[in-house]
């Protein structure tokens, strides 16, 4: 499979869960293990761009597919706007649910760049946070949405003033 743009190949047991493959085999411990029953969402990663709970996906099922984890969210030194939003709005405390929350939030914003509070709450409703009471997580995602809208506006402005070429370098938020 491809994990965070790097191809990995391993011999594994057929029953090995994706969460344990990522954590114990690849050492990508940002993805957490919290419940075994798909209720808590601390294990959310992307499988071909879709958020999935990696405690209920066999590693073998991810063979040949694209996996993205929290370690692949930032672009080098630059944090993703979702990560920045969580810091700005105190969207995390103990940090255990945070990677899963951010992966879901990023996926939401990629599909809906301007989600309402209710849409954000629905998007993260399959995940549990015991520390924040969720309000600051919602604010964090809104912060990222507003921040990205601002970036897009800036980009549009520079595109207008700079007749050609800017579009090719713009890129999408993902």
């Amino acid at each position, binding site marked *: 499979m491809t994990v965070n743009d790097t191809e990995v190949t391993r011999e594994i047991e057929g029953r090995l869960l994706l969460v344990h493959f990522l954590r*114990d085999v690849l050492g990508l411990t940002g993805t957490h293990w919290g419940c075994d029953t798909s209720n808590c969402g601390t294990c959310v990663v992307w499988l071909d761009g879709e958020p999935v709970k990696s405690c209920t996906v066999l590693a073998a099922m991810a063979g040949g597919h694209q996996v993205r984890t929290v370690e692949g969210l930032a672009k080098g030194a630059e944090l993703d706007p979702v990560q920045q939003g969580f*810091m700005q709005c105190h969207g995390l*405390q103990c940090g255990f649910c945070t990677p899963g929350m951010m992966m879901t939030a990023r996926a939401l914003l990629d599909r809906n760049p301007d989600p309402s509070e209710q849409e954000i709450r629905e998007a993260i409703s399959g995940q549990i946070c015991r520390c924040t*009471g969720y*309000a600051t997580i919602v604010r964090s995602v809104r912060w990222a949405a507003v921040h990205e809208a601002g970036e897009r506006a800036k980009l549009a402005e520079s595109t207008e003033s700079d007749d050609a070429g800017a579009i090719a370098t713009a890129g999408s938020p993902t």
Partner: protein
Amino acid sequence: MTTVHERPADTFHDNAQKPVGHGRMLRKEDPRFLRGRGRYVDDIQLPGMLHLAILRSPFAHARILSVDTTAAEAAPGVRAVVTGAALAAQNLAWMPTLSGDVQAVLATDKVRFQGQEVAFVVADDRYTARDALELIEVEYEVLDPVIDARTALAPDAPLIRDDLEGKTNNHCFDWETGDAAATDAVFARADVVVTEDIVYPRVHPAPMETCGAVADFDAIEGKLRLWSTTQAPHAHRTLYAIVAGLPEHKIQVISPDIGGGFGNKVPIYPGYVCAIVGSIVTGKPVKWMEDRSENLISTGFARDYIMRAQIAATREGKILAIRTDVLADHGAFNGTAAPVKYPAGFFGVFTGSYDLEAAYCKMTAVYTNKAPGGVAYACSFRITEAVYLVERIVDCLAYELDLDPAELRMRNLLKPEQFPYTSKTGWVYDSGNYEPTLRLAMDMAGYADLRREQAEKRARGELMGIGVAFFTEAVGAGPRKDMDILGLGMADGCELRVHPTGKAVVRLSVQSQGQGHETTFAQIVAEEIGIPPDDIDVLHGDTDNTPFGLGTYGSRSTPVSGAAAALVARKVRDKARIIAAGMLEVSVADLEWEKGSFQVKGDPGKSVTIQDIAMRAHGAGDLPDGVEGGLEAQICYNPSNLTYPHGAYICVVDVDPGTAVVKVRRFIAVDDCGTRINPMIIEGQVHGGLADGVGMALMEMIAFDPDGNCLGASLMDYLIPTALETPDWETGFTVTPSPHHPIGAKGIGESATVGSPPAIVNAVVDALRPYGVRHADMPLTPSRVWEAMQGRARPPV
């Protein structure tokens, strides 16, 4: 006192813009968590590390007839299989609990709750260890269990603790507080007496990270390194030394990043001891990480108090006295984590925020065939139960007198001139100014408008409820003359070193499970010594590298360790003043401190910064006579009293008359935790506790069937609120500093967990008023609310 209405804006804040000291500041610990670089116990991988899994009892009460480990030992990849009998041979089968009882590490004679530890396997990987559990054959003789605490003392009840010499029943302890005769006298002459049976059901903190440990015993060094999910690394180290007989200086307990604690990670669990034994037996590092079901069925539960509350008042609504009788379910072992002299924790503050003439509480605690625990889930040592009791019975009184519950509280709140106030059960409330706090909450809620809206809706048959709760907490345990845990005084140490270039490191005896100590404590020190918080590293959670202290629980970090941090910084500043006087060639009396530098009085141009002083302290130049080089200090802070935060909460709910589903529409929380260090972190602490309150009031309960099977053994069955059950919290604050805390701060970590359940229940009961409901027990699930609407409200079992 200042009164401020707070709704923080989501505007950009940059730490570089942050001046020295208190105020909103982004968290220093966030960058590692945001990148998935947190380091939790289960993230630790050591060379050659093995994995441990625990075989647990399927029965609540059964005699162990035999344990056969032959097949498990023969399985490929299995390195060790250990039973209770093997531990007994080393005198390790039982360990002391934090309440002076004993608890089985691995059962030898009987199992006493479902999920109790029976044997463990150490193997090459997690899956192999789990597989091998299936190969252990245990023969049980199933015994009748005691599940309902109300039956525990029946003459024919099965005896649970036959391991205790001479024990003939399931009685755990009796406790009382207050003045029974005086209270009876007040009740005898009161116009109105209201009695209600109120249950605080068994719930579970269920932090997102379960409990676990990595034990690495180095036989050559004779040193044990233990990474464990503990909120109290120093206390655990001492207990391991006492229990296992290992020399204390050869034990290093490391509490790395912790994925939430909420009291669940205060006790020493058998799993930790098993991991240590596993490492000693195999000579390899051993990891034990429980799964969610193990966490829910075997680790520290919370509450489980069956209470009869009585309140006496005048017809005009002057509250005179409160009397209560409590049956406390402590499970199979008394594993409560509370100061020794307080077997019921701080339940004694059940007199609440009101000026009473008398109060009395009588409590009986019993053993049942359920998991041990009791003090957990952000309860401030049982203040959750105390506040729930008083705030529910005050609402019952309002119901009977047909008075507005906010008005009834307003009439009875303690007045500012009564502080310091000694309660009828002997607690000395340090400071408080209650009325403005309740007033602010009512203003934020638009209380009068809400009542009007409710009246209109009632006329249309719609069910809307408004719940009010006012609480006083007692946090920051505690003065060592009164409070200890197994003989360890509840003080906290702090060490501050300022490096030559003026950067600093502060070492704490408490540790963080998400509270943001790396930020808050840097701010406390920064405020005192003038070094920017970004230049101060905060170390915690490692017994080899931090001073001794009792850890983080009961909202004690800021009241105790926060005080230590402020005082150690002042101690360093005092030394810096002497050095500065030498540098400026003036007497110390001629210097004044101006955030970060000492100036000559009347000549502000003549000054030295704390950074200049640090370099001089470490440099080659002369120091004043008698001054040692270096710029560092260490102290141990023993609080003179607890701190008493307070708050006023208002909850608005809508109940669907057709389905009995409760929707929390609004929640207004006004907290007073004294001096506020980082408002952003305080707000976060409050938010989290409010969500806990929604969980306990409406969803969460660890229930059992009559055979003792735990019915809340997974997150499919034990329901925790998500973003859909919780509203956007509305928070405000007042500031009444603590007079005895060096910076006037009080604890805040558990206020909302304490104060929110009664506000929510009061709101639901208020919504059901058209049905004549005066009380209904938590959790107020649709079926339980429906039963209340039909006049069949029942206590939960």
